[in-house]
């Protein structure tokens, strides 16, 4: 029996800042002190506060060490683990108050969170099935198989009000009911783990931190609809998630929690992994299934819907990772418990990946109906460097930008649609006053143009034309008529594209046109980029009266386009410099170099 547990985050974020080296060093130091039988070191999934990684938590004290370095480990082992003196200096400083250490759950980042899908992330060792079982793992599967009829399971999921967490928000129970209603010799349960939105990493974190929850939920889904086979379609770019999933599947098989005659009930279910090669379109359900079949990932028209003819032309359900992560808790705690959280039409919680211009970059899970302001300002800690909030982007390339005036809207599926964005998978990118909204729209369009599979014309050619217009505007070559043309084209693409990719691709353009039209107009009419991002519209200048003639900027200039003049400002000793705009590449090196505020951009 261990007297102390040291949890080290082994999610992708912390791993890339060397957390595995920390684990190594910990084990080494513990061994040297003879503590290896008293202190247990566990590599867990994501804690959520990725901005402060690598993260390490010591129990039973619950001490939260942040930004841990390998060099800190000997001190933590010697002081804390050997002598019981918490190294306050290295703790996450928000947990330290007047020399006492307060619970992590009381800090601004965690206080408003409600962890359902992420309940085991940062608690269990994802590579140990026993840890998962200790947290009531596979109890839901046991309950379903021994106490409930398939129809009861579907009704429970339906009553809970759970909606698809992949973005569109289709009621999960309804999807299951459709698939259950279709008779077939073989049905399939699939999991969409092809998380492709730039800046989104909720699904990766669930898979890395708690892979069994997805496996158990898929088996439950299999029982509900009468399927005996399942596939998890996961991105090959998620190596840690893939590895832990495979370990989890192997362990579940070994315990007989996957395979034949589970719990002696005669129910058979088994799972396989399929790795996606990184095409964004494979996150779309029909493309994903085509890809599982080994063909090129391209969408096909619906109907028939997958519940009728899906994978290998058999009835299939496809749910997102986060959707599955809620299922076991709904079964164990009852649909009323789940429905008690959230808003009228969106129940439960939602995980968001906070990114962009925000202090606490990371993963948060909040009840539906939490306002954007609470997420950004309280949980996220606000915007760094004293900048002003401009917009939040939700839903990735399918979503839109939410401006300041809508900060207080309770976030749920329907409210986000109403203000021209969407839930999407839950990426939330915060932008401040130095972000150009036209440039943001262009960034997402570039992404969809790259990722369009090319099967249907509106998406393949429409998005390309749209991008060309945006490029012209950011170069100062736009016209006011272009704005109307763009809007018309957007609606055309939305109405005529074959799959979700094209149908939602114009959203970033439409929402920025709706809320930030003045920025488009500034680009077109004044040839200015108000945020100072679009290079072609920028001009760097030296205020000759402020210039002291030190020549630092001229030396830094990579294209040597800053020259000395024959003008010496009153009170200055040396002649001022000036920039020859004809060769300027607008790198901004002069602006960063000047200590006297003589260089300006605009």
């Amino acid at each position: 029996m261990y007297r102390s547990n040291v949890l080290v985050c082994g999610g992708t974020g912390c791993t890339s800042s060397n957390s595995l080296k920390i684990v190594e060093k910990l084990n080494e130091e513990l061994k040297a002190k003879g503590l290896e039988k008293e202190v247990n070191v566990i590599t867990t999934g994501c804690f959520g506060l990725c901005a402060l990684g690598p993260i390490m938590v010591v129990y039973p004290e619950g001490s939260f060490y942040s930004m841990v370095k390998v060099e800190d480990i000997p001190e933590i082992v010697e002081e804390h683990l050997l002598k019981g003196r918490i190294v306050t200096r290295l703790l996450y400083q928000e947990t330290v108050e007047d020399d006492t250490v307060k619970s992590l759950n009381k800090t601004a980042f965690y206080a408003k969170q409600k962890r359902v899908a992420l309940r085991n992330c940062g608690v269990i060792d994802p590579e140990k099935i026993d840890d998962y079982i200790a947290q009531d793992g596979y109890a839901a599967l046991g309950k379903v198989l021994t106490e409930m009829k398939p129809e009861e399971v579907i009704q429970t999921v339906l009553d809970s009000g759970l909606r698809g967490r992949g973005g569109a928000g289709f009621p999960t129970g309804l999807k299951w009911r459709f698939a259950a209603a279709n008779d077939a010799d073989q049905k399939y349960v699939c999991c969409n783990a092809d998380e492709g939105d730039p800046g989104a990493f909720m699904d990766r974190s669930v898979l890395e931190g708690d892979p069994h929850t997805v496996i158990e939920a898929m088996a439950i889904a299999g029982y509900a609809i009468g399927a005996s086979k399942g596939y998890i379609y996961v991105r090959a770019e998620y190596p840690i998630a893939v590895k832990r999933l495979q370990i989890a599947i192997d362990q579940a098989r070994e315990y007989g929690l996957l395979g034949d005659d589970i719990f002696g009930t005669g129910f058979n279910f088994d799972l396989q992994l399929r790795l996606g090669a990184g095409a964004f379109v494979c996150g779309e359900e029909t493309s994903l299934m085509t890809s599982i079949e080994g063909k090129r990932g391209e969408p096909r028209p619906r109907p028939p819907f997958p519940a009728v003819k899906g994978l290998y032309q058999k009835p299939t359900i496809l749910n997102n990772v986060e959707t599955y992560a809620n299922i076991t808790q709904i079964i164990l705690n009852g649909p009323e418990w789940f429905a008690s959280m959230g808003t009228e039409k969106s129940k439960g919680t939602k995980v968001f990946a906070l990114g962009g211009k925000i202090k606490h970059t990371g993963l948060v899970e909040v009840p539906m109906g939490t306002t954007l302001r609470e997420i950004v300002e309280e949980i996220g800690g606000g915007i760094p460097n004293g900048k002003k909030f401009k917009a939040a982007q939700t839903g990735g390339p399918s979503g839109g930008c939410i401006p300041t005036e809508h900060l207080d809207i309770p976030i749920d599926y329907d409210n986000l649609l109403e203000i021209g964005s969407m839930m999407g998978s839950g990426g939330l990118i915060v932008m401040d006053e130095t972000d150009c909204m036209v440039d943001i729209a262009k960034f997402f369009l570039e992404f969809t143009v790259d990722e369009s599979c090319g099967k249907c014309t509106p998406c393949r050619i429409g998005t390309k034309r749209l991008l060309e217009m945006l490029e012209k505007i950011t170069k100062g070559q736009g016209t006011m008529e272009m704005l109307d043309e763009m809007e018309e084209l957007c609606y055309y693409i939305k109405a005529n594209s074959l799959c979700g990719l094209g149908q939602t691709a114009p959203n970033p353009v439409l929402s920025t046109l709706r809320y930030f039209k003045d920025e488009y107009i500034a680009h077109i009419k004044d040839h200015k980029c108000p945020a100072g991002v679009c290079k072609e519209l920028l001009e760097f200048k030296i205020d000759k009266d402020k210039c002291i003639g030190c020549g630092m900027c001229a030396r830094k200039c990579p294209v040597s386009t800053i020259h000395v003049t024959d003008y010496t400002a009153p009170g200055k000793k040396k002649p001022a410099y000036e920039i020859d705009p004809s060769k300027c590449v607008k790198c901004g090196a002069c602006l960063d170099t000047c200590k006297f505020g003589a260089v300006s951009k605009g």
Partner: protein
Amino acid sequence: MKSLAELQAIRERAKANLDLRKENPNAARVLVGMATCGIAAGARPVLNAFTEEIAKRGLTDSVTVTQTGCIGICQYEPVVEIEVPGEEKVTYVKMTPEKAVKVVNDHLVNKNVVTEYTIGANTK
């Protein structure tokens, strides 16, 4: 896995280690003084004895064992304080692993303070 009982057995076996990772404000706390004076007097075996015995008796969800610094009465080390919510704190002194087992048994399970090991009995 052929029955729910099998799953339950694994759960029971694995639970104790997981309980350690939960913050439970209502749990009774066993604080073992682990400053230099405590360690020198043999506090580590005492700490481990508490951990083992509490796990053995399945008390991990209601009792947490933690280390603490010097309590200030170095001549009585190893010192152990037990805080049960709603009750007065009890300080045990000159503890040994054998005494620890008895304290878990009498104090934490049967709710009888082992008076003869307390600081009160040892200062008279």
